[in-house]
């Protein structure tokens, strides 16, 4: 089955799904709105505050906010599109009906790419909207200046969160357990291991930065880190990776997530 037909099949499956509709709607509404919470901090002295809404810094702040939204919404979506098919036994029925395992897997990756592209477009357009509204003018040069490949970075981080969710779903197969592990790994397991085991026990150098989730997060870090990086003074290297390093780690991680997912799906009974 060709890629377009596989995407069409996935759209057919999910177009009546109220959970997915709500997820996409919430993301689309929240993406341009959340940053305005920072308006409440106008009286507080936060490093870099002046640039929350102006180009080019608005790209960084919006990307950071967007990374949290994609971590929450689209990582969950990655888990859902696999565990729901297992729970409803429609994964099995799709194969019985005539889809090969390769086609089924490819369909999931393709729809993940489509959703990632949509999420990135929403991020990009909403950031332009926020910046233009604040600055009161549409200056294309200003908009495009110093983006540091933000479109690509956001695309990568969204795709990475989704493929991580997909991998976790293939490993655990149950939605509750998968979601629990997804959040636990990102918020606790990897950070704790990096700081308490790797950094303290194995190495005092930069290697403890080169972990999947850290790489993904550093594609759109909290911009304030650059202003308050005391870590650099203590350790002689910054706490943040460069965008290039983060990009490489993220790409390697995505390949790892998809490979593990594919092998599990291919080998296991359905």
């Amino acid at each position, binding site marked *: *089955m060709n890629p377009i*037909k596989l995407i*069409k*099949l996935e759209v*057919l*499956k999910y177009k*009546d*799904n*109220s959970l997915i509709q709500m997820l996409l709607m919430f993301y689309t509404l929240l993406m341009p709105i959340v940053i305005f919470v920072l308006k409440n901090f106008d009286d507080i002295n936060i490093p870099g505050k002046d640039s929350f809404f102006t180009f080019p810094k608005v790209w960084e702040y919006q990307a950071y906010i967007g990374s949290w939204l994609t971590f929450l919404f689209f990582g969950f979506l990655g888990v859902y599109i696999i565990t729901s098919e297992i729970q*409803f*036994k*429609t994964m*099995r*029925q*799709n*194969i*019985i*009906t*005539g*889809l*090969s*395992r390769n086609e089924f897997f490819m369909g999931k990756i393709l729809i993940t790419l489509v959703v990632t592209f949509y999420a990135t477009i929403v991020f990009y357009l909403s950031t332009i909207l926020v910046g233009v509204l604040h600055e009161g003018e549409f200056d294309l040069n200003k908009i495009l200046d110093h983006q540091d490949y933000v479109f690509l970075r956001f695309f990568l981080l969204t795709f990475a969160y989704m493929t991580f969710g997909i991998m976790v779903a293939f490993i655990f197969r149950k939605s509750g357990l998968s979601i629990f592990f997804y959040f636990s790994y990102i918020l606790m397991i990897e950070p704790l291991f990096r700081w308490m085991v790797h950094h303290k026990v194995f190495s005092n150098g930069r290697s403890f930065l080169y972990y999947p989730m850290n790489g993904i997060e550093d594609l759109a870090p909290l911009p304030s880190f650059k202003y308050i990086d005391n870590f650099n003074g203590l350790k002689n290297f910054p706490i943040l990776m460069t965008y290039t390093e983060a990009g490489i780690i993220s790409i390697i991680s995505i390949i790892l997530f998809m490979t593990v997912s594919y092998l599990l799906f291919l*080998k296991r*009974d*359905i």
Partner: protein
Amino acid sequence: MSHVLKINNLSKAYGKIKALDNLNLTIEKGNIYGLLGPNGSGKTTTLAIILSILKADSGSFEWFDGKYGNNPRIHIGAILETPNFYPYKSGVDNLKIIAEIKGVKGFDYDKVMKMVNLEHRKDSKFRTYSLGMKQRLAIAATMIGDPEVVIFDEPTNGLDPQGIAEVRSILKRVAESGRTVLMASHILDEVEKICSHVAIIKKGKLLATGLVGELLSDDYLIEINSLDQDKLSKLAGDFDFIKKIEKQKDFYIWTIDNSVPAEQISRLMYEKGIILNHFLIRKQKLEEEFLKIVKQ
């Protein structure tokens, strides 16, 4: 091509439990094949393997003499265990997904929904269907793409008597359409009524295979007794139509050739001066044969 399916030495174990043990089976085109066996005999495991849901530990199978390559399932319509559809989508929308996978365009959904008596509920969400409706939708799904082979796994499981009657009536129509049908069931009556051929399996082994009429013969049993048991016993030895005699505690069980009706036997006893105090026609000959094969 006359074989639609060839299974060669298929084996599958779940840990220490051997679900299939060197199963061999060939299904010819146009046959209505019953896969008969008690619960846990390996019927669903067999179907799951030939539909590529499970991987066999050893052995092989081939559909349509390999004509359709690695993915012959486009030409097969199948239900395995429970009907599996997207609960938030309507009945007809679920069928559209099946059609999309099979690459079928312009399918007449109204016609097939009418065939399974679901035309009035085609736009209702699948999660609102009763079990009988779900089974009927699953049967409708097997028809999409005009498959060469249709597979049903325990299609009347869990249904009430009305549901069972409805589903069997639909299955008979499917069977009469000229397709090759493979139906797994533990209900003898169902297999006898619908199928032309039967394969009996137990603990993953094939015990017997052949025409339903030959394998599960329609000789019948009677329970018979008289106050003069000696005379009855001697007389029984003179009749050719009695194929087998078993002595029970209070009566004899005679296996009677189907060509001799029970009333003729009753009349015969009267003519020979034997007064019967027990005479009962047993309609479960089929079950007796099945249990006999399975116990071997």
